[in-house]
């Protein structure tokens, strides 16, 4: 087991800076998700850690040992590729045994280790099966077993669930989480799905245009987003134009859409702001002072999310329990006191 420390890591492809000044510490046994939209540099960052790409700047160390200039061959990270990269001409057993070099283990010990990791991923007795015969979920687990077999210091997962059916994805996610926790291996996971990152990871590193926007627990990212991008990427939000009119006990007082809001935000904020309001940030209330017209509604099980058109022309989402609100109806709402976050509006 190891810690992974990145310091000011940078990578350019030609003119494009794909990773810029990323510093990140992953504790021993911790699972960190690298989350971001496509093109955010998350996969490149993972490949830099694995050694498939060489950093142009900064340093990478495993367990205090600098591995920046080492090749992928020397780093021996356990890697699960997005499309698994199982060797199609080898059996399940041969795939899993591939990383168990003869120099380190004799044939019997190899077989034992293969059986052991296959049991770990619930594929006992699959040694002689052809990998091409397996279902997507089984292939994913063989890829995981193959990565884990040589007991790597770090496990790297590149969008491990993106190739699975949605129905299978949730179950596999649970199994993956339990397995990684049980082994206690330091893990980095790349994903573009916020839900996946929040469900699996101890901490989430959110990347945007090659830069680290915020690192923190899922709760921290949701409740106190460091940037407007984080707030927009994590969960549903609507944006209102507002103005800071004061502050009280750590909250900002903001005027937006004609009413007064209590919002979290950077302490020194003054003047024009973007006010990000989550669906739980407003309640439907007959005594509310803000009115909006129902434009659309989306059934989401226990609640229905309604999009309201405000008098200012801005839109706002609100979660309600009853779904019997007709489109075009007028609703009265008021701020709930939570779920609103302000960022300085540099243009205003």
């Amino acid at each position, binding site marked *: 087991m190891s810690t992974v420390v990145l310091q000011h890591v940078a990578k350019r492809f030609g003119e494009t800076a794909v990773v810029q000044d990323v510093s990140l510490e992953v504790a021993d046994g911790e699972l960190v998700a690298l989350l971001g939209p496509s093109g955010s540099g998350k996969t490149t960052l993972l490949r830099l850690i694995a050694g*498939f790409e060489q950093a142009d700047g900064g340093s990478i160390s495993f367990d205090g040992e600098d591995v920046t200039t080492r090749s*992928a061959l020397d780093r021996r*990270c356990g*890697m699960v*590729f997005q499309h698994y990269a199982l060797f199609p*001409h080898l059996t399940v057993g041969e795939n899993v045994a*591939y990383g168990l070099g003869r120099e380190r283990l004799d044939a019997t010990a190899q077989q034992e280790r293969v059986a052991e990791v296959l049991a770990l991923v619930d594929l006992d007795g699959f040694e002689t099966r052809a990998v091409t015969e397996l279902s997507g979920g089984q292939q994913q687990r063989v890829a995981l077993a193959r990565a884990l077999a*040589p007991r790597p210091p770090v496990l790297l997962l590149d969008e491990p669930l993106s190739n699975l059916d949605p129905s299978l994805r949730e179950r596999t996610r649970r199994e993956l989480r339990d397995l990684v926790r049980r082994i206690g291996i330091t893990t980095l996971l790349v994903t573009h799905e916020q839900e996946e990152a929040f469900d699996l990871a101890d901490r989430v590193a959110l990347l945007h245009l090659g830069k680290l926007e915020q690192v923190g627990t899922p709760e921290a990212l949701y409740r106190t987003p460091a940037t407007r991008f984080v707030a927009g990427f994590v969960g549903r939000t609507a944006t209102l134009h507002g103005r800071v009119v004061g502050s009280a006990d750590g909250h900002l007082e903001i005027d937006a859409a004609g009413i007064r809001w209590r919002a979290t935000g950077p302490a020194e904020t003054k003047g024009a702001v973007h006010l990000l309001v989550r669906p739980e940030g407003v309640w439907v209330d007959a005594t509310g002072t803000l009115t909006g017209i129902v434009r659309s509604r989306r059934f989401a099980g226990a609640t229905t999310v309604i999009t309201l058109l405000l008098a200012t022309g801005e839109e706002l989402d609100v979660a309600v329990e009853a779904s019997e609100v007709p489109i075009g109806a007028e609703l009265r709402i008021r701020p709930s006191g939570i779920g609103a976050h302000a960022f300085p509006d540099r243009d205003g």
Partner: protein
Amino acid sequence: MSRRLAGWALLALLAWLVVEPLALVAIDAVRIDGVWTTQSIRAFFVERNEWRAAWNSLWLAVVSVVLGALIGVPLALATRLVDFPGRRLISALLALPAVLPPLVGVVAFLFLYGESGVIARAVMAVTGAETPPWRFEGAFAVVLIHATTMYVYSYLLVRAALASFDPALLEAATALGAGRWRAIRTIVLPLLRPAIGNGALLTALSSLASFSAPYVFGGGFRVLPTQVVTTRLNGDISVAMVETLALVALALVALLLASRLGGPGTRGAGKGLAPAPRGSSRRVRSVVGMLAWGATAWLLLPHLALLVVSFVPIGAWSNTALPSAWTVGNYVALVAQPARWRPFGTSLWMATLAAVVAAVVALSVAVAARDPRQRLSRTLEAALALPWAVPGTVYAIALATMFSRLQPSAGRFVLIGTLWLLPLAYLVRALPIVGRALVGAIRGLDPALDEAAASLGASRWRAFRTITLPLLGPALAGATALAFVTGLGDFMTSVILYTYDTRPVSLEILGAIRQGEIGVAAAYGVVLTAVSTLAFLYAERSRRLV
């Protein structure tokens, strides 16, 4: 229903053009003057010369396969996996021999390694010898030519397989602790097995069919294709037919062996990205780069010799390392003298006609054979591919046999001695080239496109004209260009079927050499090489557009 009818009509056309001539050869082998007999077959098995020719063809094919793979596979790996300076240029240059006319290649060898070639003259100039230091002929010369031209099949197929190779497989091997050599040995080579097998098959078929090299350099070294022509010239038609069948049998054995070599495909589930060449140290890059450049120079050196010789005036070069005078007179002669220009014109119209008709037939077959699950489709495809597996010499003989008698009920007419037989032969040889490309291209099209066009109200004809045809356009144009150069430079069918008035350019090249006008022969060769190269580059570009 009408579509099915068209399919059967096409099958009848192919049966007439491609299958019947071969069947007639088989019959002629066991029927002399209207009497069934095994006399010729017995003669074939008794005569030592016959056996020797068959044996020579066999071992020549095996040696060509082995040497071709030893040259082609490492070059494909080097140009795909290592990023050395000039990698792209080398990749393209190495593919060239695939389209250069075999006779031109052989002539180029003659000018480089032959007894009055560049190297022999250089040796004579250095040692002061009066006579050439060696005679470049026999089995060794043929093996050398085969190895240095037929590597291209292994090279092209392995290169194509590597292009669809999932690079994550190599990364996975690296992350699991496999070094470069272990990854190549345990992952890359096993996955390339089908490509290497197919390359071996193409090499074997080319070697069995090879005519120009043994014809020009063989000396006493006879192989089946040259033996067939000799026997036939001696008037022993029936034995020639048995030899032809023996050649077909060897080609079929090669096909059967190759089909056994199949294995799991190379396609991973990946994005189909070519492995980006990277991660090699500077030392590996420079060593591999030097080897690849060296190999390319060696492989293309004969063509450089061809270029040099084409600028030498007649009789101006005897025993110096380099010629003492230069001229463009050889090229001027090609254009200025009608007798020299005419063979070019003949080859041009024949190759053009053959390629265009082949394109039309192949396009119709591709449309009719689009669904690979239907038996009719598979039969059409097989008929189209037949001339690809059967040596060209065999087809020339078969067509000569078929069109030597008037028997309209069997579709037989007298074409021998007319100017129509040669374009017909080029057409038969061109069919598999265009056909394989088009069947592949049309099956690669999304059938939903046709359905979309139909749902938008397009008739079947309009959908074909506005959707299918434009999408097939690049493949059609590229394959037709390749079929054209095959006819333009053809020697092995021409030498059997030509008439003096309609002699094609390849025979004119040979004639010029025999009359000692090597400069003119070289100039013809350079022009053919240039046209073939242009057509090849055009085809490559078209292929990339698909």
